[in-house]
């Protein structure tokens, strides 16, 4: 908050401060570097991401190997202790972070892509296409994801992280599509869209080069929310046993801890790291999202 208050008086649009013309992008960076929420949120996500990327390289044994004595609390050798079966919780945690990020990223990308394509097309073309895409959006919006997943799992089985992430992506795009459609709708009536037409641009070029850049901050925020959302859904699915059956993820760790009564046995080191990890990632993403919102939206900045 203090960073915000410091930043507020130096509005680059202020004529007194107009020595050097400040571009939109540079202005955003200027405020981003002074936004506490954004820096804190992005920092937490980055640290955990690095841990997930680099951590597994330092660990020799696979995460589910029975490497140590069972049921041991945190120690210099096993930082997060061991499970009932002597698996290293820290190894599971860093591998789990990697999987969780992968699931969130892939799910977020798939959902964002579908949401953008549907939203842009519906908003820009309007008419019958809009009606059809809107209907599709509403149908997917009310599909009970969990029930569908149960059925899919029963018939096909979700074995890999990628399949799980794609399923999440395929079911979580509707609200993004609606939001992007609404934004596109308001932008497509602007004269610069007509001018692009008069410059020989086709629909695709107008969407990608005129409309999308105008809402780039909006698209970024959408992606971040979808990313966090995917992590949450993936973890929930893992926890209730509908996740990938191979490998390890934070949600699977929680499921195992619950299945082997870690709480009743007082093995807090088994379930707190994955729980705290999920909370930290998603919470930090949302805090960063609020910070980004303040960076891009001058109205929020002035408070």
């Amino acid at each position: 908050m203090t960073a915000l208050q410091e930043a507020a008086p130096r509005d680059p649009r202020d004529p007194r401060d107009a020595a050097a013309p400040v571009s939109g992008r540079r202005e955003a960076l200027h405020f981003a570097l002074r936004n506490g929420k954004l820096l804190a949120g992005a920092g937490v996500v980055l640290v955990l991401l690095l841990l997930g990327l680099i951590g597994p390289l330092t660990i020799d044994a696979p995460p589910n190997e029975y490497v140590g004595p069972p049921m041991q609390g945190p120690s210099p050798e096993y930082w997060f202790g061991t499970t009932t079966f002597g698996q290293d919780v820290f190894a599971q945690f860093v591998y789990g972070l990697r999987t969780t990020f992968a699931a969130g990223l892939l799910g977020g990308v798939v959902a964002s892509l579908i949401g953008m394509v549907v939203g842009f097309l519906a908003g820009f073309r309007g008419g019958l296409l809009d009606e059809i895409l809107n209907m599709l959006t509403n149908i997917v919006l009310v599909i009970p994801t969990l029930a569908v997943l149960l059925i899919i799992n029963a018939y096909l089985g979700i074995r890999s992280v990628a399949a799980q992430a794609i399923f999440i992506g395929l079911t979580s795009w509707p609200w993004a599509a609606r939001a992007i459609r609404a934004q596109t709708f308001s932008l497509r009536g602007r004269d610069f869209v007509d001018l692009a037409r008069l410059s020989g641009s086709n629909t695709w070029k107008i969407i990608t080069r005129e409309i999308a850049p105008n809402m780039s901050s909006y698209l970024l925020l959408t992606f971040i929310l979808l990313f966090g959302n995917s992590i949450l859904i993936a973890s929930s699915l893992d926890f209730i046993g509908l996740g990938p059956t191979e490998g390890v993820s934070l949600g699977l760790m929680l499921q195992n801890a619950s299945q082997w009564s870690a709480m009743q046995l007082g093995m807090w080191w088994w379930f707190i790291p994955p729980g705290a990890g999920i909370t930290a990632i998603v919470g930090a993403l949302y805090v960063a999202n609020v910070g980004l919102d303040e960076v891009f939206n001058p109205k929020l900045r002035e408070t």
Partner: protein
Amino acid sequence: MMLRLDNVTKVYKVGAFGGKTLTAVDRVSFDVPEGQVVSLIGESGSGKSTLGRMILGLVPVTAGSITLDGAPVRPGKEYYRHVQGVFQDPFSTFNPVFKADRVFQLIREAYFPAATAAEWDERVRAALRDVRLDPDQVLGKYPHQLSGGQLQRVLIARALLLDLKLLVADEITSMLDASTRIDVLNLLAEIKGRGLGVLYITHDLSLGNYLAERTVVLRHGTVVEMGATDKVFGRPLHPYTRQLLSAVPRLHDPWEDAEPVTSCLYHDSGAAGGLAEAEEDHFVACARLEGCREERLEGRPGGRPEGVLKGRLEGRLKGRLEGR
């Protein structure tokens, strides 16, 4: 070059499932010859902007035809090489996230991909100087750093980069202050001198009068009066035109109310496009022109004088036609 509109009609579908229709433009016909400014005058909602957008191919035509040099208009890259538009709000015409000179870049990408950077820069600078802008002052700036007048001139310069035959100027001066406005108008007059046709769409009678050889007055989507500007302005025949003219504020002259536009006294049949030729190069719609019509159209084939006239109006119109 000749842009010809022939019975151009635009019907919008409105309401749930397009159940109702709204006729925005109804059988409008006129020409924009080369080297002339034609001003299209009408109040808000008269369909003048819709007409401009149809000519630019931004809105499809429901019925009728628009032809350029006899060829039907097909919106696309080739058409826009010859026909360009400038819109009302300069700040909305520029994408606010990009620099203003990006409009030149778009033209280069689409029409002159072979031009080298240096060549292109020289052409842009020349075009900017043509519209009396200092290239160094406008290049590399964001739209919000330029004034409305500068932005509109940048857009005209953009159009001049192409092999332009017709410029549709849709209310281009309504967001400008008075002194800038006259600069932009003089610029349009200059463009006309290069043999371009200009369709100048406006609600401002005095601006239309200042610039245009020919004037088309539009009301509720139909042409009520058109012809040579001095005739339309000097001897307005249609009650609506007269009402418009009397609504122009003049110094030291109290406003007077023109007689309200009442229902039309008789509907015409036979006259082309629903317009009757009152005198040479002066057409009036559907004979809401009372006395004139009787005098001028008598004996004309298809002319069907009807004598339901209001004496008061008749006298006044006669006076106007005889030159007061």
